[in-house]
C-alpha cells in the first residue's frame, strides 16, 4: 500500500508543537514539582546570632508556602567572606541553594577586598528586613548621652567595638568623628554577640552595631544614637537620628538581611526561581510571619519586603559607600 505523506505547513506546525511539548514535558513536570527536596541555605555568620534568629523566623513561615523545609549551614569567618566564597564556589546553581546574608556589611566587604567570584554572579531577590545601625553603651557605662561621647572623644581617642571593620555602623561612627572632631578607634570584635559583650564588659568605650542585635540584648545596653530613623522608639531608648542631632546629611547606615541566589541558577531555571519569588511574597502576606518575627526578638517595624530591584539598588549603594570609605576601613 502506497501512502503518500504530504508535509504541509499545518502538519509541520502541529508535529513540531507536539514534538516540542513531548521534549519539554519532563522539564515542565520538574518545574511544577519544584521543590522536590529541602532548600540548602548558606548563612555566612555563626549560629545563634541575629541572622540566625531572622532566618529561623522567616523560614518557619516560608516553608509552609514552599512545601519543603530550609536547611541552614553556617559558614562564619572573614567578615562573612567565607560563607559567600563557599556558596559561590561549592553550591550547585540549581535554585536548591540560597544564601541568607546581610546586604549591608557583607556587600561593603566586596568594596574592601574583591572576592574570587564576580559580585554580579549572585544577586539578592528577597529582602526580609531593614534596620539602622546605632551607637550604644553598656548599662554601666559612664556615658549617658551621645554628647558625652563626643565631648570625651574630643579629648582622647575612644575605642569603638564593631562587628567588623567593613560595616555600615563603622562608616557611621567615622562620619560622626569627621563632623565633630572626635577621635574614634574602631576595634573589630568579630560578630554581633562579641560587639555587645565588648560594650557591656568595658572592653571598648562603646560599640556600634545593627540595631536589631542591640534590641535583642535588652537592658544590658543603652542606645544613644541612630544612624537613620528610630522606628522603634523606646526599644532604642528613644535615641535620635544622627542627622537630627548634628545637622548632617548622612544616608541611613542600614543592614538588610536578604536571600540571594546564583545568577546562573535564576537564568537556567526561571520557573524554579519564579516559584521562590512567589512564595517569598506570599510569606509576607501571612500574618503568622509577624508573630514569628516578634517571637524571635525582632522588631516588627523592621520587617520590610524587597524584591530584586530594591535589593539591587541597596547592593549598588553599599558598593559605592564602601569605595568612598575604603581607605579608612582598610587602614590603607
Amino acid at each position, binding site marked *: 500500500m502506497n501512502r503518500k505523506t504530504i508535509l504541509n505547513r499545518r502538519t509541520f506546525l502541529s508535529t513540531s508543537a507536539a514534538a516540542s511539548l513531548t521534549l519539554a514535558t519532563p522539564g515542565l513536570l520538574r518545574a511544577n514539582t519544584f521543590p522536590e527536596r529541602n532548600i540548602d541555605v548558606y548563612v555566612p555568620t*555563626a549560629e545563634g546570632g541575629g541572622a540566625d534568629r531572622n532566618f529561623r523566623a522567616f523560614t518557619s513561615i516560608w516553608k509552609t508556602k514552599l512545601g519543603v523545609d530550609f536547611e541552614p549551614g553556617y559558614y562564619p569567618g*572573614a567578615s562573612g567572606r567565607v560563607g559567600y566564597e563557599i556558596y559561590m564556589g561549592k553550591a550547585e546553581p540549581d535554585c536548591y541553594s540560597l544564601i541568607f546574608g546581610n546586604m549591608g556589611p557583607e556587600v561593603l566587604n566586596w568594596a574592601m577586598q574583591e572576592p574570587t567570584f564576580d559580585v554580579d554572579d549572585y544577586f539578592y531577590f528577597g529582602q526580609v528586613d531593614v534596620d539602622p545601625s546605632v551607637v550604644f553603651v553598656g548599662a554601666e557605662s559612664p556615658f549617658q548621652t551621645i554628647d558625652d561621647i563626643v565631648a570625651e572623644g574630643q579629648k582622647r581617642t575612644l575605642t569603638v567595638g564593631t562587628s567588623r571593620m567593613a560595616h555600615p555602623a563603622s562608616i557611621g561612627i567615622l562620619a560622626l568623628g569627621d563632623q565633630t572632631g572626635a577621635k574614634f578607634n574602631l576595634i*573589630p570584635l568579630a560578630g554581633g554577640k562579641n560587639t555587645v559583650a565588648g560594650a557591656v*564588659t568595658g572592653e571598648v568605650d562603646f560599640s556600634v552595631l545593627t540595631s536589631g542585635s542591640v534590641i535583642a540584648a535588652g*537592658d544590658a545596653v543603652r542606645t544613644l544614637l541612630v544612624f537613620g530613623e528610630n522606628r522603634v522608639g523606646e526599644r532604642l531608648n528613644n535615641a535620635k537620628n544622627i542627622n537630627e542631632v548634628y545637622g548632617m546629611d548622612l544616608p541611613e547606615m542600614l543592614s538588610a538581611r536578604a536571600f540571594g541566589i546564583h545568577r546562573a541558577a535564576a537564568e537556567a531555571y526561571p520557573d524554579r526561581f519564579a516559584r521562590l519569588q512567589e512564595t517569598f511574597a506570599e510569606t509576607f502576606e501571612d500574618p503568622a510571619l509577624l508573630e514569628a518575627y516578634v517571637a524571635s526578638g525582632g522588631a516588627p517595624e523592621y520587617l520590610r519586603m524587597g524584591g530584586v530591584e530594591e535589593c539591587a539598588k541597596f547592593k549598588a549603594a553599599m558598593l559605592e559607600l564602601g569605595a568612598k570609605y575604603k581607605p579608612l576601613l582598610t587602614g590603607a
Partner: protein
Amino acid sequence: MGDTAALLFSVLMDTLGYWWVMIPTIFLGLIVGGIPGFSAANTIIILMPLTLAMDLQMGLVFMVTLYCAARMGAGIPAILVNIPGTAGAAATPLDGYPMTKQGRGQQALSISFVSSAIGGLLTTIIALAAMPLLARVGFYMHAVEMIVVMLFGISLIASIAAQDMIKGLIAGFLGLMIGSIGTDVVYATPRGTMGFLELYDGVPLIPALVGLFAVSEAFIIIEKKVILSKKGQEAMENPSWAATFEGVREALVRWKHIVWTSIIGLVIGVIPGAGASIASFVAYQQSRTFSKTPEKYGTGHIEGLIAPESANNGVTSGTLVPLLVLGIPGGATAAIMLVVMQYHGVSFGPSLFQRQPEVGYGMFMAMAVSYLLMMLTIIPLSRYMSRVTTVPTIYLAPMIISFTLVGAFVPREYMFDMYLALAFGVLGYIARRTGYHVAAILIGVILGPLLETYFLRALKKSEGDITVLFSSTIGNILWVALVVSLILPAVFDRRRKRKELVTP
C-alpha cells in the same frame, strides 16, 4: 532570702519532676559528645523543632542536660582510643590514654566521670551562689589579660619541650604556624590559605584534633595486636566492679584537685568568648606546675586526667553566668540556648532575675540535677565501655580511622576536612616516630589563633603601642603569676634533688 530559698526549692522539685527527660538526654549527650564533630550546640540546632515544641521548662532542662552530658561524653573516646571529640577534651588524652594502654581504662573512665560530675556540680553551686560576683570577671578580663591566660596554656609547650627542648619547641612553633593560617582578625586578609577556601576561617579544629591524635595513633597501633600493654592485657582480661570503684576512690581522694581545677574552668568559662579548650590546657598546666611529681604527667598520671576533665565541666556552668546575668552568651551552646529561650519569650539580661527568676535558677538547677543523675547512671558503664580496648587492632585501627574521618566531615560537611584529618594523621605519625610531641603541635594549633586574636585586639586598642601588654593591674599580676609558674617547677625540682642528696 527566705523567698529565694523557697523559690530554689520549688525549682528543684520541678526539675526533679523532669527526670524522665533528663535520663534519655544524658545518654543522647554522651553519644553526641563522644562522636567527634558532633556537639551539644549542633545537636540542639538539629533538634530545634523538637525543642521549640517543648514547654519552656522542659526545653531548658533538655538543653542544659544535653550540654553537660555532651561535655562529659567527649572524654570517653579521648581516654579509650585517643580521639578527643571536641577541642575542650584535647588535653584529656594526655594522661587518659596512657592509662588505658596500661590496662587502666576502666579506672580512667571512672576518674573522668567523677571529676567531671563533681567539678560540674560544685561549680554549678558556686555559680548559683556567686553569680553577680562571677559576672564581674568579664569586666576585668579584657584582651591584655586574656593574652596572659593564653600564655599559661601555651607555656605547656615549654613543659613538653623540657624533655627534648629543640624538638618540643619546633613542634610548638609548627603548631603556632599552622594556627596562623586563615584570614587575619582585623582586615580579614587571607594568609597561608594556599588558595583553599576551606582554610579561610583557619585550620578547622576537629580535623586537626582527630588527625594528630587519633589517626596517627591508629597508624601506630596497627603495628601491634592490641592497644594495651602486656600488663594491661592481663588487667583487662577480668574486668571487675572493683576497678570501677578503685577509679571512683582515686578521684575522690583527690577532691582538692577537682575543686581547684574546676574553679579554674569556672573562672575562664565566665569570660565571654573564652572556652573549654583554654580552660583544660590552663588547668593541666597549673596542675603540672604545682605538682610534686611533674615528670609523671603524660604517662598516665591521675591528676593529669582530673585537671582537664574538671576544668572543662567547670566551663559548662561558667558559660551560663554571662548569659543569665548580662545577656551575653559565653559560648556557642549558650548562644543557641539564647535563641531557643527568646522564642519562648525569655529576655536575658540584668533584670532576668527580677522578671523570671525561675528561668535563671531553673537553668542552674537543671545543671546540678543532671550532674547528680550522670554520676549515678554513667559510672557503672565504665566497666563495659573499657572493653573496647581489647578489640584487636586489625579491627580497631580501621574503625578509628573511619570514625574520625566521619567526625572530621560532620561539622562543615567538606570532603576537604577528611583529607585534612588524614594529612594531620600523617604529620602526627611522622612526629611520633621521630620523637616530636603531637600535643605541642596541637596546643599551638588550638591556642595560637586565640592568642593572635587577643594580641591584635590589644595592639589595635593601643594604636600599636606594645607597652599596652603591661598596662593593666590585673594583667600585671597575671604576668607575675605566669613567670612564677614557669620558674616554680625548676625550683621544686632543685629542692627535690637537694633533698635526695641529703637523704641517704
